[in-house]
């Protein structure tokens, strides 16, 4: 299992140009549908990975995007939290296929938003120490991402998308959902 493959990865490794896709909004049914596992070496999955990164790049404030958010119920997401004030560890830009949480601890409450729920935010408890195993697009090898703080939150949020959950399913209480006050 490779630990360094994720940090050294960039979307140029995909070898295809990403296209900017339309982001779907709740209550679109695809956002509540568990995504199908994918073959990460499938050319269509590689193209989807490039499209997700391209769409994330043009979306202000976006630190991650799952395939279900562009209407495709496949177990693929991208993350890039670089530059966010709440990060500690970061692995730069990466895409994971078929990712699953293998270790999670030290749950803390934090505010989350989502491009698919653009006008609301919510307080969600997430693990701040996290290990995730998945596959980079174009490779069948499993890689592990061990991270913390904001990158751990982003990973759990995206894996939730792949399993058909929104942050709204995880909010901490009746007064933990707020109208968004800041749009980036």
């Amino acid at each position: 299992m490779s630990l360094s493959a994720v940090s050294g990865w960039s979307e140029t490794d995909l070898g295809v140009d990403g296209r900017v896709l339309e982001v779907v909004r709740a209550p679109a049914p695809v956002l509540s549908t568990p995504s199908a596992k994918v073959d990460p070496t499938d050319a269509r999955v590689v193209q989807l990975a490039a499209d997700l990164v391209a769409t994330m790049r043009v979306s202000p404030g976006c630190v991650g995007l799952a395939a279900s958010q562009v209407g495709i119920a496949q177990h693929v997401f991208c993350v890039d939290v670089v530059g966010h004030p709440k990060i500690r560890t970061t692995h730069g830009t990466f895409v994971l296929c078929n990712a699953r949480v293998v270790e999670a601890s030290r749950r803390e409450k934090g505010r989350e938003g989502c491009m698919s729920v653009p006008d609301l935010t919510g307080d969600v408890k997430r693990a701040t120490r996290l290990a995730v195993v998945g596959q980079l697009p174009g490779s069948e090898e499993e890689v592990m991402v061990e991270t913390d703080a904001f990158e751990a939150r982003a990973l759990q949020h995206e894996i939730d998308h792949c399993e058909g959950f929104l942050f709204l399913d995880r909010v901490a209480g009746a007064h933990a959902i707020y109208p968004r006050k800041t749009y980036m």
Partner: protein
Amino acid sequence: MSHIAITVIGHDRPGIIAETTSTLAELGVNLEDSTMTRLRGHFAMMLLCTGEVSAARVEDALAGLTADGTLQVSAREVAVEDPAVASARPYILTVHGGDRLGIVAALTRAVAGAGGNITDLTTRLSGELYVVAAEVDLPAGADEAVLTAELARIGRDLEVDVSFRPQETDVL
């Protein structure tokens, strides 16, 4: 000593809280538990107060708030309730999906049918998306699994996503 429930609701503008609470202070009415929030641009206040005046006297004193016709005020005497929380298992119910009539009614009926008591509930309509978040106390004898299955069934019927899970309690 009167226990008085006061509601103020209407067009939001700066100064509603200041005017209301200043009037109450002048009457010697003490503001105890309250919630004050914006609901779709309206400002809504629910206040539980105590004082040596009648509810009618409070409503008269607050009548100035209603003068321009944009706010409604009511004050009523209420019974004394025990604020202590009964022993129960706390849960969070969240719902999201397309807006339609009867979502809250159907789900809260199921909660009530299981003996669950809703202690807090908020709803938000955001475009086409309807969101409910509720805190539910289940009595010791309630069957969590049966209620969870019933809520899931109602969610499928109404084509909304329903989550019902134990509330994590933050204790230092």
